[in-house]
């Protein structure tokens, strides 16, 4: 937890966030997102942009502070049984959904069961694997029983993706999933500080203060208007002209320019919680059918010597960070980035050593007589991916290897990565990770997103041991062991952290930076 807390503490210092006592009520917060909101079914729709809406319209059982403490949200208190299998939540009595119905134990049970139901196709379902059942004790007491101890149950409820966002049973049953996804205001009902007024895809999303929000006096803002401005130059122009108050996700490439143009801007960042990876494919379908369980070796990277030659000794992570991020990121090797809980710096295990890389390649049979050529896929979502791919191409050329870059769009990359498509290596930054456990859905051998398609059960064992170990000290030991193991096997090849920036006008007060995990406006006020 220390690294996450330190990251957030640093961010707060960097941000210079104020904590004035005389908050002003009212006003419209104008927010810019860099990407479109995909839809508004909170339990189903993918994307951070949706999460950042969900956490303002919805409420959950508990929240998490920047220093990693769990705090009440709709639950006023909770207890955990000594065996770690039973979580009992006592709910506050004054919590209402935006449709006027009460947030009670039945609503909690309904929400958890909706997420667990495979028919819902919730992105949260895999995180709830440990949940056995939910029981309503009385209208304000609910118990969640687990199949086995799960050390990160509270983390998951508070902040995996959007955490547990409670759904109004009445509204959920009344409206179809399509109506929810499409953002019909009556269908998108939460219990958070803001209620949805309108979402017009490609134009704006408007949320107004929910006057019956259960925390007296909050939120301060009358309205939040979110617009999508994709081009960072336009974002900067709008920011400079005072047309927007807050950029929720600002391009790292343009931070210096924005700072120069707006010396009073609050530029917020912290230790990276998203890994930038150069993923190598380890196995391919033996029968040629994508997603087949019958696996064969990948022609190039199944050989650990080649993986190490390229991914370990052949890549100069410091140089990549210097060129691609102007030094504003951390060169990194571990399976989880520097800002994630229980992260360990194992980068020293892969020093840049072209001679050693050449020797390993020679051992694997590659050399002037049989040069190694592989395809390096990247996508157009962020320009930094192509920069990194180009630097890798240049670096591997130094050890006699040719990397042919294939630039594709985001959807093509997603298809290839998730559907066992043909690739040798790709550059991408993947999901933001609060704790190591959260990476299970991306890198366990059975995960759909295990795009390397490694089949090593030892990875799964590490995840299981880590998630079930209730002693934080022992857990830390497992985490270190796992990160060293991962660095040795290179099923997952991290290059660096992927920096995340948010920018606020000087008059936007009391916003607390929590990386990609939480973008909360309930305590924000405008001093103008």
């Amino acid at each position: 937890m220390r690294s996450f807390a330190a990251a957030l503490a640093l961010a707060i210092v960097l941000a210079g966030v104020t904590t004035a006592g005389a908050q002003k009520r009212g006003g419209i917060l104008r927010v810019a997102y860099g990407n479109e909101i995909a839809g508004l079914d909170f339990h189903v729709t993918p994307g951070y942009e949706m999460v950042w809406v969900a956490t303002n319209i919805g409420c959950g059982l508990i929240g998490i502070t920047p220093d990693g403490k769990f705090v009440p949200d709709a639950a006023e208190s909770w207890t955990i049984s000594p065996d770690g299998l039973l979580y009992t939540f006592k709910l506050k009595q004054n919590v209402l959904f935006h449709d006027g119905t009460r947030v009670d134990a039945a609503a909690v049970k309904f929400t958890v069961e909706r997420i667990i139901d495979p028919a819902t196709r919730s992105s949260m379902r895999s995180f709830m694997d440990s949940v056995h059942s939910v029981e309503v004790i009385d209208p304000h007491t609910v118990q969640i029983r687990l199949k086995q101890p799960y050390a990160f149950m509270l983390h998951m409820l508070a902040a995996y993706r959007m955490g547990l966002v409670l759904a109004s049973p009445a509204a959920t049953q009344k409206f179809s999933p399509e109506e929810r996804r499409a953002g019909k205001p009556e269908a998108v009902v939460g219990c958070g500080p803001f209620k949805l007024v309108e979402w017009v895809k490609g134009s704006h999303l408007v949320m107004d203060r929910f006057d019956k929000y259960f925390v007296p006096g909050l939120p301060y803002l009358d309205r939040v208007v979110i617009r999508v401005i994709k081009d960072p130059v336009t974002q900067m122009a709008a920011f400079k002209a005072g047309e927007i108050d807050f950029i929720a996700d600002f391009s790292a490439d343009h931070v210096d320019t924005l700072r120069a143009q707006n010396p009073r801007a609050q530029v917020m960042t912290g230790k990276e919680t998203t890994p930038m990876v150069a993923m190598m494919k380890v196995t391919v379908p033996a029968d040629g059918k994508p997603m087949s369980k019958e696996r064969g070796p990948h022609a190039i990277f199944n050989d650990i010597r080649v993986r190490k030659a390229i991914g370990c000794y052949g890549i100069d992570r410091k140089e990549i960070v210097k060129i691609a991020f102007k030094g504003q990121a951390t060169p990194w090797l571990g399976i989880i980035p520097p800002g994630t809980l229980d992260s360990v710096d194992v980068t020293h295990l892969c020093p840049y050593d072209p001679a050693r890389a050449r020797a390993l390649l020679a051992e694997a049979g590659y050399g002037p007589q049989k040069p190694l050529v592989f395809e390096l896929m990247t996508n157009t979502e962020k320009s930094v991916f192509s920069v990194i791919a180009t630097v890798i191409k240049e670096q591997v050329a130094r050890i006699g290897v040719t990397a042919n870059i294939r630039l594709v769009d985001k959807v093509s990359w997603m298809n290839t990565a998730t559907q066992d498509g043909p690739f040798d290596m790709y550059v991408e930054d993947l999901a933001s990770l609060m704790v190591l456990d959260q990476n299970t859905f991306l890198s366990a051998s059975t995960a759909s997103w295990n795009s390397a398609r490694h089949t090593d059960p030892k990875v799964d064992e590490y995840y299981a041991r880590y998630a079930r170990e209730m002693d934080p000290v022992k857990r830390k030991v497992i985490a270190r062991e796992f990160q060293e193991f991962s660095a040795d096997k290179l099923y997952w090849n991290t290059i660096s952290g992927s920096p995340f920036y948010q920018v606020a006008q000087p008059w936007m007060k009391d916003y607390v930076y929590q990386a990609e995990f939480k973008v909360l406006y309930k305590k924000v006020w405008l001093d103008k």
Partner: protein
Amino acid sequence: MRTYILKRILGVVPTVLMITLVVFVMMRSVPGDPVVPLLGDAYTEEDAIKVREAYGLNKPVLVQYAIWLGKLVQGDWGTSILSGRPVLQDVLVRLPVTLELVVLSMGVALVIAIPAAIIGALRRNTWADYTATSVAMIGVSIPEFFTGVLLLLFFSVGLGGLLPSSGWVYLPGTCPMMVCGVSLWGNLQHVLMPAIALGIGRAALLTRLLRTSMLEVIRTEYVTTARAKGLAERPVVLKHALKNALIPTVTVMGLQVGFLIGGAIVVETLFAMPGLGTFGIDAIIGRDYQQVQGFALVTALAFVAINLIVDLTYTFLDPRIRYA
């Protein structure tokens, strides 16, 4: 004339059908599956199969097209695979923005092109002609996004927000949503830079074209006759020469609508405008087949309709032209 218009309108049907069919088949030939971004982190092959079935994506392409067409005839443009929103609703929200942008950028192009071409033609091989020709060359050479960024940096950043950098304010009475900015002045402020960025390249092209036409026309016998009869230069140029010189220009203007819609994609993205251009590009990137079809349909209809108007304009410019 009526018979001609009716024939042209009927002629639109196969053209639009062909365009939508080609787009339909092409989109399905492009690698990438909308189900993957739809399911996101929750992606499993089992769920993907179910979703493909639910949206009919597992059917043969021509069957899918027939289903889409069948629904279209009943007024159902389908719903977005990714957002679940009705396509027609989103198209109608975005159409006025792009329509206004395209019309105004053509206006900007004409306001620049007509005087520049007249000056270039009448003052041939003088500094005025060279200036007009050079400016036209520069205009053609600079892509819309570059002009847009320059305008953005000058008017929004350099001049302290003189013109808004992004977003949209609707004309009074045209707000298609619950929450919009509505003001005539605000609308003008928002559309000015995008219209200039988009129109300037077209202005350059039209200047060169019109100048050449003018040069041909002013050498014709009827212009010489008009001058010999003692008509002042202004009516000779504006009434006799320009009107005839405009015919090829108007034809090209009609064809330029396609380029304007293409340019609108870039300009709308740059200025974060909620128009059809951004709608189209988001749809293509996301492989949102239903939205792509909506975009293709509306742009094809717009293109065909504008070219019909162009054809009808000929009768005004040259009364000798008659449609039977």
